């Protein structure tokens, strides 16, 4: 019974690692800025899963409070990121991440 629990905790961590890796690969490969934002969200969620797992493993509520802060920062990040994407697409419709490599107005 004890061994199964340990495996489940390790399983959470490995699952979070896989989600983070998939998100990182998405950020590297995709060129649509909106999809890149979604992949960043994926990575943030993988880290949240890790934090909750550590919170359970170490019997400490601080990990869950940290997840709450990550949620808030992620929300702020998405708002600002989407604002930038809207501002850029208004000037250059259909711009990919390759097109906006020059940051001049």
């Amino acid at each position: 019974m004890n061994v199964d629990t340990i495996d489940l905790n390790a399983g959470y961590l490995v699952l979070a690692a896989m989600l983070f890796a998939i998100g990182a690969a998405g950020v590297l490969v995709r060129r649509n800025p909106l999809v890149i934002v979604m992949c960043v969200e994926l990575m943030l969620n993988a880290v949240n899963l890790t934090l909750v797992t550590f919170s359970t493993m170490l019997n400490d509520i601080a990990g869950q409070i940290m997840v709450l802060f990550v949620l808030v920062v992620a929300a702020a990040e998405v708002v600002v990121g989407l604002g930038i994407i809207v501002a850029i697409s208004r000037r250059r419709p259909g711009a990919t991440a390759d097109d906006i490599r020059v940051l001049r107005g």
Partner: protein
Amino acid sequence: MGVQIVVFAVCAIVALLGALGVVFARNPVHSALGLVATLFAIAVLFVNQNAQFLGVVQVIVYTGAIVVLILFVIMLLGVDTDEDLDTEPLLGQRWAAVIVALLLIGGIAGIFFVEGRGEAVTGQVAALAPIVPGIPSTDAQGNPTTAAGVDTFVRALPAEQQQAIGEQNITQIGEHLFTDYVFAFMITAALLTIAVIGAVLMARRPKRYEPMPELEDTSYEDVDELSTTGEVTG
């Protein structure tokens, strides 16, 4: 015990499939739907780990607000057209990304095989606020109880006490959020205000509206095109 493992297995599969959908979908709307599946699965995993409050917040904030915001922007900009995934802008970029991802997974999963399951996670048990008080930091053999986690001890309790521990989750988070972390909490409020003001400023349509100038084309095909048109006009 069995229920937890089954829930974990199902949600892990859903989360992984959704994540792969985010990366591989050609249409951004399909990517957003894959993201919803992943976020829901992670919310269920939070509840599975006795973090009920975070499970609810995850559904409300992520699937309820963030993904809807992303979908809104997709529809607003009309960029819900398929992306061309067949051409590779940088030679070997995809293989490099796959290798990086595999190294990341292999590195983290390898820790559990090399270090052993107990020693992989280090840290002080119940450093700030124990979720379940009274759990010793070492077991009878003197090994740290880190790897076993809270679940083992919670499941050994009678059903009423297990339910009480689940119901304490919000109370515990609230107590420590408004005492130990109250400064970070207030900074968060300032951060949200700044983000809202910044988003409004950026999304505002400027009075002096001028489209961004086209970039100079540096690829060889465009150079050829220029030279041929130059011959025709000259």
